[in-house]
């Protein structure tokens, strides 16, 4: 404990004018340094912001441009011939709406399936001890290391032999192969943070393991489960090659649908493609807006142990 008082301090001499000037100079320098570092920080933020937002701006500008102005060389940063025609044309394209519905169905089921399976697997890995548990955990993660092309060819052959090609099932199962491992590890990390004492208390109160997971652990891990679901949804929503290969036009999702519709042998309909890309990114943006607080919490949960 300190017992110093002002009287205990050595007498402070009144600063001489030159020392005071020096003090003011130091403060001024410090203020200048602070201002400089703030300006530098703002410049850095502006540069990074521009780097991040420029593609979005370019997307919007192209979506509002006419085909002729898009091909201007050198390209113009600010478009002059603006039109909404690219957006109105989207509403008239039934096939695009079909692709969007397919994407919503497939990505949503992928998210739910990934979370359900990953919850049980993650819980098992976290709270149960059994032979081969570690190997199984590593096997789940190692499946992430397979090249996509290898998985694709194998899945194509397997789905084909089971008559599952061109079905939602094929898409959901294939998307789940690459969303589930990360979801499992993400949720395992979250379950690790749930104290064992809580589970023991539930057990003493007569709750079965099943009940403990559903009524006690799952609500606690809900933010993490939402984050994992969102991750799986976005992966499913964005996948191109699996959706193109495993589904026909009737069941195809947006990414291959957009490429098929707008990117041709000789020409790419950039304004329409950009308008469609903007519109179809809306569901993902909305999902992020509503769930982003869970996302941050869920992604970092389990990173620090109590």
């Amino acid at each position, binding site marked *: 404990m300190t017992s110093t008082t002002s009287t205990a301090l050595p007498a402070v001499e009144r600063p001489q004018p030159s020392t005071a000037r020096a003090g003011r100079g130091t403060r001024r320098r410090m203020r200048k340094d602070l201002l400089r570092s703030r300006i530098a920080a703002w410049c850095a933020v502006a540069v990074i912001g521009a780097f991040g937002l420029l593609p979005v701006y370019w997307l919007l500008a192209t979506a509002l441009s006419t085909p002729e102005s898009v091909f201007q060389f050198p390209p113009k940063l600010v478009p002059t011939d603006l039109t909404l025609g690219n957006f109105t044309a989207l509403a008239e394209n039934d096939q695009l709406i079909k692709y969007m519905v397919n994407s919503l169905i497939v990505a949503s089921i992928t998210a739910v399936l990934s979370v359900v399976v990953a919850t049980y697997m993650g819980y098992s890995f976290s709270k149960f001890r059994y032979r081969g548990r570690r190997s199984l955990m590593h096997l789940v993660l*190692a499946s992430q290391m397979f090249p996509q092309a290898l998985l694709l060819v194998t899945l194509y052959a397997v789905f084909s032999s089971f008559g599952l090609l061109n079905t939602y099932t094929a898409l959901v199962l294939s998307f789940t192969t690459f969303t589930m491992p990360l979801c499992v590890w993400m949720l395992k990390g979250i379950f690790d943070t749930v104290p064992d004492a809580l589970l023991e208390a539930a057990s003493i109160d007569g709750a079965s393991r099943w009940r403990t997971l559903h009524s006690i652990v799952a609500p606690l891990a809900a933010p993490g489960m939402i984050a994992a679901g969102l991750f799986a949804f976005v992966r499913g929503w964005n996948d191109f090659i699996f959706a193109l290969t495993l589904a026909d036009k009737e069941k195809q999702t947006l990414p291959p649908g957009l490429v098929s519709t707008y990117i041709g042998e000789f020409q790419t309909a950039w304004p329409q493609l950009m308008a469609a890309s903007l519109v179809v990114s809306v569901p993902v943006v909305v999902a992020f807006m509503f769930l982003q607080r869970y996302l941050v919490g869920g992604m970092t949960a389990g990173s620090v142990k109590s």
Partner: protein
Amino acid sequence: MTTSGISRRGALRMFGIGALGAAGAGVLGACAPSGAGSTADSGDPKSKNFDFTSWSLNEEAAKPAIEKIIKAWEKAEKSKIRAVSYPYNEYLSQLTLKLGGGETTGAVHLDIAWLAAMAQMGRLADLGSVAGKGGYTDVALKSGVYDGTQYGLPWNTGSIGVIANAKLLEKAGIKKHPTTVEEFEDALRELKGLGGGVVPYAAATKVAQLKDIFPWMQTFGCTLYDGGKVTIGDDASVDAVTWYKKLHDQKLIAADVDRFDARALFGQGKAAFYDDAIIGKGVTSAQSKDTTLADAMQPMERPVLKAGDTPRALLWGGVIAIVKGKGQDAATEFALHTTTDRATTSAYFAARALPPSTTAGLAAPEVAKDTFTTEWTEKITKTASGSPFWQFAQSAQIDEVVAKQVQAVLVGKAKPKDAMRKAGEEVTALTKR
């Protein structure tokens, strides 16, 4: 509570499992049944219903015209055609997978550059007996041949050649198309003198399209592939690349140009020459604000090294191949009808400006009155040839390794001789795989 961290031992175990799993997946993939139509050549060849696979069925400009052909056939033959399509850039890989898996049947639209890769899979029917009935031109017929067998009926046969802007040439005081490399260089300098950011020749300088260098290499005397040997790296190929580099250094061609940039430059009257397929006229003029550009576009014979040489051009076009098995007979009839019926080919020409592959089709008044098409056929397609590398499954990789070496020369990272020697070695390795 357990830890979720990965120890070194754990990481090693994981890699081991990963490798084992990858091998297992490979074995599983290899052992899995080959698909819905698992047995090769399965299905009833006499079936009236079949599939027609074409990338053009995705494309706004082509789709209505092809659907019209399909509907007319279905009505006349009381059959059902299932239209299947994949995007052009993914077409070859998708088709390879699906043809191998037995999912693709019936008629298949192929770029002539892909015919060899598809034919090597052993699932395509020999159409030799049918092709004789079509009245195809010699050059067209050859575009459907691989290893002496007629695997494809030619649908549209054209080439990739040089397109000139007559208005710009006139502005630079150039009265006629240059015929030799020397004259061409002089013309490019005249055009450069116009100023205003004109790129005299919007030649490909980006890797994606640098395969356009091949006809120039041939112009300088390189055969590319001869008697089972890759000839890239010989003096002629080095001369061609040295010349290309000279054009680049003198700013007669520009850096970072691909086909899309070339069309944009040409469309804005900032390029006097560029390389494109015959369809380039429609594509480039459609995206140009200059409504008179189409009239100023002229096909030009690629300049030769010395007078009397044969101008070089790359053959370009599409064929329809038939998959053995379900619907084979009806699909063959459909392919023959689509590629040779005069009314059908004329209507398709009217919709897409793609030249028919038959003598009668080319002579049809609707086609014959199109000066650009007839001139193109006479000046460019007549002497065009396919790439000797198309016969290799790695032909796309071959294009890329040569392109990368040429680009290294253009940006000054390699000398032409070293770069071409290296390209030749790499291409040789790819042809041996």
